[in-house]
């Protein structure tokens, strides 16, 4: 009975029903293979699928421009996902006790099927995430995408960057080998350098650094307490915070109207980045956006697999508190800090990083011009300023660190003066002052806060990169300045 009723149905009811069913199934398969076609279906594919619905169902086509975002945001988020998945896999075998941490890691590397690859992926994804997060921040800055009311999201992003560094740092300790142990010892000691200020000012009894180290390590030395604490942070607290902030970060992007775009991309509204751009400027996300994200994910997967296949995550000998590494180096992203710390623990380790973080955080409120939003380097003047700031940053770093390195680290004459002086006047603070001065100079000449911020950010970026490079490649045993490849480097410990 019904629409498909035909003469034969009364004689072969089953066959008829099968025909209806198969034709419906065929249609469904055809539909599935082709994907949604109608506007409504494509829109609903995004908004009614749980795992897709945080994406907008309509986007501005400019957002797809590869050279605009370079896919860095997606890349960072993907790295986080990879880290979570591989991290959970590693948790199956890893034991966070000082007696078994190293041996369980060694077993993962040598015995667990595919353990070596899972661990390698985890490690290279971790380093990769730090790099992509920083590059993402640079992209957001240089395209001015903190403007137009997106300051909160910029702050969330800075918070995410701090979380990334912390996650990487807490994870660094878990293998419990010589590299881990001494890197974390250095990190904790740098944090404890906060005590230098009250001590130099004469309040020796005040020791916030000791309290901070106790908070961080659960003890004054790196041991079982630190391991459990770091493990807890690494697998529970920080990932939860991270996930929450990532969710917030994505939500704010939606609320702010999607990715930023330049004014001339807004053909009809003329209002940059305003929510509710004219509908006709937007295209449906499905399927292009998802192909774009799939491309990023796929290439990132291939890169991670290549790295995991070709390079093994290091595993030195088991941590030996009686045998310090020489040189003992913090993880590479903290080596810039360590280099500056070698001149002044408080200046380079506490004061300047805090000032830098503060400086980064307030950028959206210093620069409210929304100038050249959505365009890399804003405009030709901005590009010029950027290039000049890069050069200025390089020169400043060389000018400040050159003599500092030449003087060496055994500076006895520093001890003769009042301790507050080297605390507040040292290569780190001098460099920071020069960068601030340069930014001020640019503001004076251009009368533009955007240019000033470009100057500040670029000079700082170049300085950080150079200082990290010095700490990474030019510092040998006893923190001597050595050119890479010299005999002293090769044969020394």
């Amino acid at each position, binding site marked *: 009975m019904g629409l498909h009723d035909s003469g034969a149905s009364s004689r072969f009811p089953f066959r008829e029903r099968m025909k209806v069913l198969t034709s419906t199934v065929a249609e469904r398969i055809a539909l599935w293979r082709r994907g949604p076609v109608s506007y409504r279906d494509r829109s609903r594919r995004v908004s009614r699928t749980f795992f897709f619905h945080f994406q907008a169902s309509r986007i501005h086509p400019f957002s797809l421009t590869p050279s605009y975002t370079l896919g860095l945001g997606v890349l960072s988020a993907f790295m986080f996902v990879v880290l979570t998945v591989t991290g959970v896999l590693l948790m199956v075998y890893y034991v966070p006790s000082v007696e078994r941490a190293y041996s369980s890691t060694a077993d993962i590397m040598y015995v667990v099927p595919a353990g070596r690859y899972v661990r390698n992926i985890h490690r290279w994804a971790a380093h990769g995430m730090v790099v992509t997060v920083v590059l993402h921040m640079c992209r957001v800055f240089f395209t001015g995408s903190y403007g137009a009311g997106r300051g909160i999201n910029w702050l969330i992003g800075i918070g995410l960057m701090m979380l990334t560094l912390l996650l990487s740092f807490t994870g660094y300790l878990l293998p419990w080998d010589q590299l881990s142990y001494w890197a974390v010892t250095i990190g904790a000691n740098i944090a404890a350098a906060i005590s230098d200020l009250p001590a130099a000012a004469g309040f020796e009894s005040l020791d916030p650094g000791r309290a901070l180290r106790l908070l961080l390590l659960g003890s004054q030395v790196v041991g079982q307490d630190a391991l459990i604490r770091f493990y807890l942070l690494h697998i529970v607290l920080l990932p939860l915070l991270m996930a929450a902030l990532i969710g917030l970060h994505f939500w704010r992007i939606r609320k702010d109207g999607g990715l930023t775009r330049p004014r001339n991309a807004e053909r009809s509204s003329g209002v940059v980045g305003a929510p509710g751009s004219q509908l006709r400027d937007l295209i449906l996300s499905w399927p*292009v956006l998802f192909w774009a994200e799939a491309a990023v994910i796929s290439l990132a997967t*291939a890169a991670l*697999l290549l790295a*995991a296949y070709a390079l093994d995550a290091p595993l030195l000998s088991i941590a030996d508190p009686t*045998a310090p590494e020489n040189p003992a180096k913090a993880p590479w992203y903290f080596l810039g800090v360590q280099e500056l710390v070698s001149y002044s623990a408080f200046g380079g380790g506490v004061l300047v990083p805090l000032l830098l973080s503060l400086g980064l955080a307030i950028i959206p409120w210093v620069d409210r011009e929304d100038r050249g939003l959505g365009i890399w380097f804003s405009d030709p003047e901005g590009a010029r300023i950027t290039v000049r700031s890069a050069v200025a940053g390089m020169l400043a770093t060389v000018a400040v660190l050159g003599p500092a390195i030449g003087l060496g680290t055994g500076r006895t004459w520093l001890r003769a003066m009042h301790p507050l002086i080297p605390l507040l006047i040292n290569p780190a603070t001098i460099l920071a002052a020069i960068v601030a001065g340069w930014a001020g100079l640019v503001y004076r000449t251009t009368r533009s806060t955007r240019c000033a911020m470009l100057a500040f950010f670029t000079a700082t970026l170049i300085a950080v990169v150079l200082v990290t490079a010095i700490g990474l490649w030019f510092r040998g045993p006893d923190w001597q300045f050595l050119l890479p490849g010299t005999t002293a480097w090769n*044969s020394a410990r």
Partner: protein
Amino acid sequence: MRTEHEYRSLFRNLTLAGGLLSCVLLLAMAIDRGSHDDWQGVQRAFRDSLLARAASAGDSVAAESFVTEIRQVSLGADDRVDRCITCHLGTVFPGVQDLPQPLGGHPGEHLVNHPVDRFGCTLCHGGNGRDATVQAPCTGADSGGDDPIESLHYIQSACGRCHTPAFDTSETAGAAVLERGRAIFRSGGCLGCHRLRMVGGTLGPDLTEQGAKSLSHYSFRHVQRNRSIPTWLREHFREPARVSPGSVMPPVRASTDDLDALLTFVLSLHPIDLPADYYCLPLLAESRGSRPGFDGETGFGLFCRACHGSRGEGTSYDSSRTGAPALSGVGFQAVASDEFIQFTLMEGRGPRLMASWRPVLSGLRSAELDRLLHWLRRWKAPVRSWEQVRMAAGSAGKGSELFDTTCAPCHGAQREGGIGPRLSNPDFLRLATDQFLHATIATGRRNTAMPSWSHLPEEELLSLVLFLRGNTPYSYPNAARRSTLGDSARGGRMFAAYCSRCHGTHGEGGIGPAILNPDFLDAADDAFLAGTIKQGRAHTAMFGWSQAGVRLSDGDASSIIGYMRAMAEQPPERIYSGAVLGRPQHGREIFSELCTECHGVNGEGKKGPALNNQEFLSAASNGFLVATLTLGRPGTAMPSWGQPSPERRLLSQEERLDLVAFIRVWQTDVIDHRGRASADVARPGLTAISSRTR
């Protein structure tokens, strides 16, 4: 900006490319995991060999039941997991010994007593047992991180870990190289600076766990060749100051093979971290401090030889930063008393390299120190008895010649005395028996300027006695040698009242000779003492106490003698330096003229020992100093200043006493046998200090 369609194609192609690459890589990983190089490949080859053998032998059960899996030995002892047998299957499978490595069996019969399931592999061979991949440890030097596999060249160090005690000479079968190394260690004086199993010096590192130290504990900054522990040790033995800047360790002069043996021994030194049933009993006992058979010779070999020379000949200041004195020479042995050596052992020499060997610091027991002392004394010629000496062929004429060269520097050319007492005094000769004269000459007087002459041949000793005797016979042939003693407490009070002003508060000598000296009281009989006290010595400051002044009775004299004999039994509180009889200012001039070239401008030691050292000055009495000046140290650079010689000038008795007075000015601390400074000092210019805590 491209069209939506263009973007879609672009991204889809990128996705496919990335996906393809990922698949290729995953495939590569999968292949790599099961590759020919990995342990699965090795086990498959093994299985093929088993099958091939089974085919010829007709029994394929074992071959077919062979499972490809990781094999490991877990020793709960120190959380060791050894996976070597995953590839080295010949060690656990019977009947496949002849297969090529790694599948073949373990060479030798070691596994009979050291089964793999109880010992694992890394306990003896080192390396990273947890690693089951092939390209790592087993094959080369670039292995197991900080604990690389031991080269088979030094494999005997593994035997030593459980089997070979260091202070014992028990043999370990099959470990000849290790035992050679131990012998070198035992005779090299290494523990003079280093420490091992709770004994030894504290200048160098503790060696008890040296073999367990990983690469991180060694600094390779100054090591020329490859980064391995045996290389470091060998270079360290050859040139310690270059490999460890600031080290004062003298180089170990030995052939390369001997150095390898020595480093095999050092590598065998491990802590006792396995269950007790892995170790042999002597080693367990030794780790708890038991050292049976630890005699003086062992002690000298272990502690002293590196600085004091293998035959006690000392080391020169050219080859070593501070040099070390010769101990075996005649000059030292004749002049140094047992107390001097004992004091030196217990107190050391302060800031110099000679450490204090007190039990609490060195870990040695008092009995072991005593044995060491006795062994050091064997370089001294034994004192022969008078009965033996009087049988020799000597004459007074020979004695006269001998006297001029040997005794005159202190006793005067006409026997009129000076530093030493007047030997021509008839009162003295009437009281002194021949035995007394011989005993004095042969034994000497400890801690005074009279050395022991036991190294002289019997004829010469007899000749001297005959010469001294001359024509004055002993007058008391029937006198009792030792009588019952009087009240020694009363005698002590009388001694303090009458005798101490010339003979010293502790009878150590001053204007008069040392009379509470045990050597003196051993030689002197009561008649000698009584006679001297009552009649005195004509033409000297010793007047007869029974005649002049106080008029002591016989009972009084007996009390004093009783006190003297009682004091001889007691060990003294410290070494009394005796009165200063010279003029320091004159001594300073002589010192700056003659002594500074070797002993330094302020006596700090340059090519000779430090004389301003407080421990030395507390150990050395003025008599020691005078005797050293007079005799010198034959066989070393210290010449004799009392005996005439064409190369240098002779120092007269006054000049020698002046020098001693000057040297004594450097003393600021007086250290007693308990290591504490005493306030009981009666010397101008010397202030007593508060007790020093040790």
